[in-house]
């Protein structure tokens, strides 16, 4: 079997070939193989149920008792081997209805869904949003992510990085469409929780109420577990609440979605530090069956420069943002310098500005190009008047009488170190300078605070200072203890923490029910099969990503009001319609190959199909050459390309987009339906030497044959001998 071929698909192909070739001569063996083939086909199509593998096993037992000839033995050995070596792949197809290698095309998830660390079924919810079914869209999202509104505002959107529409023009604005749907569903009072399973009597302790902890708590509660969340802060949200400023994520958004989780019966113990206010032994005594650690990465790295500990005006960004989130509204200073180049540095700078600082400068030791912060965040900071000092290495915080007067720096240049092509900032001697400052905020990274984790003495930690887990199950080295979020990954993204929490909830459920853990992280699951939206090729190409309306700059410099105001409803519906529905078209390119190479027409200009080398795409160009022959549609395994007849027209559609439509014609002689005029002309040209043109009449094959026969019979040469 080829290394990258799906074993389910290979087995299906093997059995089909064996049966079709007639080599299985024994009737019973043939019947067994046909039955197995049918079951394997259902597994491949995502239609199999829980009993499929057991049924195949029974058939194999029957097969083993009857091996009348060498061919049957060979077939038996093949099946035994593939079912033994790749059993997990078969089970994965059944459980997830997904084919990781995309060989079983009809059930392959889209690139955006695969890109999402939580595995949200993006094309499905976009299609629902396009139709105005926001509550249904939210229900789909919450099957994989309990915080759609939060993610709609702050997600780093890896889905958009992989969006196939981005290969044509710009990615779909997936993130904000999600926020719109959540807001609208809540406004309509149609944002509801699914019904949880009945209580199963098992109790789980979740340490940390950040996105990872909330996600795990939500999915455990839905499975019937009693969940208690221990949180040292006075509210839920973790870094969502204390790390992300309110102008990006209003508190009400977090509160509303946390309340939905509380409604499922999850209890929160706030202002409670694990290891101090409540201990491992306390929780065990309460009957806790498993622990989930989502303690985040809340400790800031020190700058390690002179003067750092000499002045109270030196503060780390995490503490600063936390104080502001809790209610501190004092500006850190008039001239604030923030050290760092990530999103936390940008957040600290923009927060300082909103608190009234006259001048805020971000000092970063590398160049603009190498800043890890989101480009949109950097641009918004610049619009608000934040200054940037690139290639700037801080060397000392200077001041007197307990007050800072400046940040001594030295200019840097980027030089590749020996043996690596990675550019490192190197100080340029003699290029020292001082930035005027009365407050310095360090934002150079965070790490995990393990001070409350002593009771989990069997948990291994990595050399990076994070909790070591098996990423397929988020299981630590201590039985019954699971972990996810920043505590495992180091400072990372909200959606990764949510995805990790969801995986851990499932793994805890398996652990407590004696089920084996998966070998690798599960492939995302398609949640619905939503009909495609019909539109013209011109409309599909013309639609463009809307521009985000923003709060005016004066208000952005003075208040914590939300900066991104959101799209209006019309823009949202249009943007959702721009989706290419990659859950249906898996971009195999067969349609293009057949049109170009087999038919010689080359009507399909779908350059976006190639991941590594996308070229120009224009759906509108198809109509120029397409003859609606249907060869592309006939060879499309997923029914993404279809040929439909409607209202006197024959339409070629790709995932609902009408690439071409031509009049349906009828035979002048008998009234039978005919292909389009373009197709008839194409066939006539190809067969001109064999078939006479039908005297300018439109005739079906039968009538044409009759006419041709009439014309030819009298002229047939007669052999006199």
């Amino acid at each position, binding site marked *: 079997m080829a290394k990258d071929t799906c074993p389910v698909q290979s087995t299906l192909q093997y059995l089909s070939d064996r049966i079709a070739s007639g080599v299985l001569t024994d009737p019973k063996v043939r019947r067994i193989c046909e039955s197995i083939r049918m079951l394997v086909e259902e597994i491949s199509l995502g239609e199999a149920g829980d009993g499929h593998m057991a049924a195949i096993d029974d058939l194999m037992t029957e097969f083993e008792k009857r091996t009348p000839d060498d061919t049957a033995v060979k077939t038996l050995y093949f099946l035994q081997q593939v079912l033994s070596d790749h059993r997990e792949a078969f089970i994965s197809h059944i459980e997830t209805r997904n084919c*990781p*290698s*995309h060989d079983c095309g009809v059930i*392959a998830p889209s*690139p955006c869904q*695969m*890109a*999402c*660390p939580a*595995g949200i079924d993006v094309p499905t919810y976009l299609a629902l949003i396009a139709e105005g079914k926001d509550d249904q869209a939210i229900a789909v999202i919450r099957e994989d992510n309990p915080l759609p509104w939060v993610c709609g505002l702050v997600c*780093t959107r*890896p889905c958009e*990085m*992989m969006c196939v529409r*981005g290969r044509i023009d*710009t990615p779909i604005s997936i993130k904000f469409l999600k926020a719109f749907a959540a807001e609208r569903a809540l406004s309509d009072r149609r944002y509801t929780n699914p019904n949880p399973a009945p209580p199963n009597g098992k109790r789980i302790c979740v340490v940390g109420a950040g996105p990872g902890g909330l996600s795990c708590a939500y999915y455990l509660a839905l499975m019937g577990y009693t969940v208690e969340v221990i949180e040292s802060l006075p509210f839920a949200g973790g870094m969502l609440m204390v790390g992300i400023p309110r102008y990006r994520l209003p508190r009400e958004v977090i509160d509303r979605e946390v309340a939905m989780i509380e409604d499922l019966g999850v209890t929160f113990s706030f202002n409670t530090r694990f290891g101090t206010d409540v201990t491992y032994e306390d929780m065990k005594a309460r009957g806790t069956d498993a622990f989930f650690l989502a303690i985040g990465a809340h400790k800031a*790295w020190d700058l390690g420069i002179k003067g750092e500990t000499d002045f109270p005006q030196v503060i780390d960004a995490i503490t600063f943002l936390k104080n502001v989130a809790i209610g501190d509204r004092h500006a850190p200073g008039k001239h604030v310098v923030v050290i*760092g*180049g*990530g999103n*936390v*540095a940008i957040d600290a700078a923009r927060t300082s500005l909103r608190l009234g600082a006259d001048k805020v400068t971000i000092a970063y030791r*590398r160049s603009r*190009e*190498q800043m*890890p912060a*989101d480009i949109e965040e950097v641009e918004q900071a610049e619009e608000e008047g934040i200054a940037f000092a690139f290639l700037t290495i801080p060397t000392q915080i200077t001041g007197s009488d307990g007050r800072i007067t400046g940040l001594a720096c030295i200019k840097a240049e980027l030089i590749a170190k020996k043996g*690596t*092509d*990675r*550019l490192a900032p190197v100080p340029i001697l003699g290029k020292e300078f001082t930035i005027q400052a009365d407050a310095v905020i360090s*934002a*150079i*990274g965070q790490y995990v605070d393990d001070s409350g984790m002593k009771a989990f003495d069997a948990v291994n930690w*990595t*050399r*990076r200072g994070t909790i*070591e887990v*098996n*990423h*397929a199950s988020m299981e630590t080295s201590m039985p019954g203890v699971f972990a996810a979020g920043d505590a495992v*990954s*180091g*400072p*990372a*993204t909200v959606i*990764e923490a949510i995805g990790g929490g969801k995986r851990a909830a499932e793994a805890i459920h398996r652990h407590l029910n004696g089920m084996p853990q998966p*070998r*690798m*992280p599960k*492939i*995302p699951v398609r949640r619905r099969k939503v009909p495609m939206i019909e539109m013209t090729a011109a409309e599909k190409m013309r639609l463009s990503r809307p521009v985000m309306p923003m709060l005016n700059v004066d208000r952005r410099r003075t208040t914590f009001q939300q900066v991104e105001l959101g799209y209006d409803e019309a823009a949202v519906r249009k943007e959702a319609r721009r989706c290419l529905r990659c859950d249906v078209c898996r971009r195999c390119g067969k349609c293009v190959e057949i049109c170009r190479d087999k038919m010689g027409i080359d009507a399909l200009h779908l350059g976006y199909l190639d*991941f*590594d080398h996308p070229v120009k795409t224009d759906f509108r160009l198809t109509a120029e050459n397409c003859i609606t022959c249907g060869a592309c549609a006939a060879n499309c395994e997923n029914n993404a390309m279809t040929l439909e007849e409607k209202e006197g027209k024959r339409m070629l559609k790709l995932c609902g987009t009408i690439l071409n439509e031509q009049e349906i014609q009828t035979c002048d002689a008998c009234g039978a339906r005919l292909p389009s005029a373009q197709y008839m002309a194409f066939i006539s040209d190809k067969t001109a030497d064999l078939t006479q043109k039908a005297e300018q009449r439109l005739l079906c094959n039968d009538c044409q044959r009759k006419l041709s026969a009439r014309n030819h019979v009298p002229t047939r040469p007669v052999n006199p001998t």
Partner: protein
Amino acid sequence: MMFKRGNRVEVFQASEDEAWEPYMNDFIGVHGVVTDPDTSINDPDDLIEVSLQGKGTHRLPQDCLRILSDTRQ
């Protein structure tokens, strides 16, 4: 090598890093896009988030990745 968001990359070899788990051997040869690079301290030792074609999104050590091209928009 420093990775940036949007870099097209290939998992070209297994990593020696402790963060490399056995299932990641399935990723060798797969192409993808960097979705979250090493964060604020530009540490070559950081794990970076990569979305791999047909394999999902994972945090991988940097020594198993090489850049194919930069497609940042």
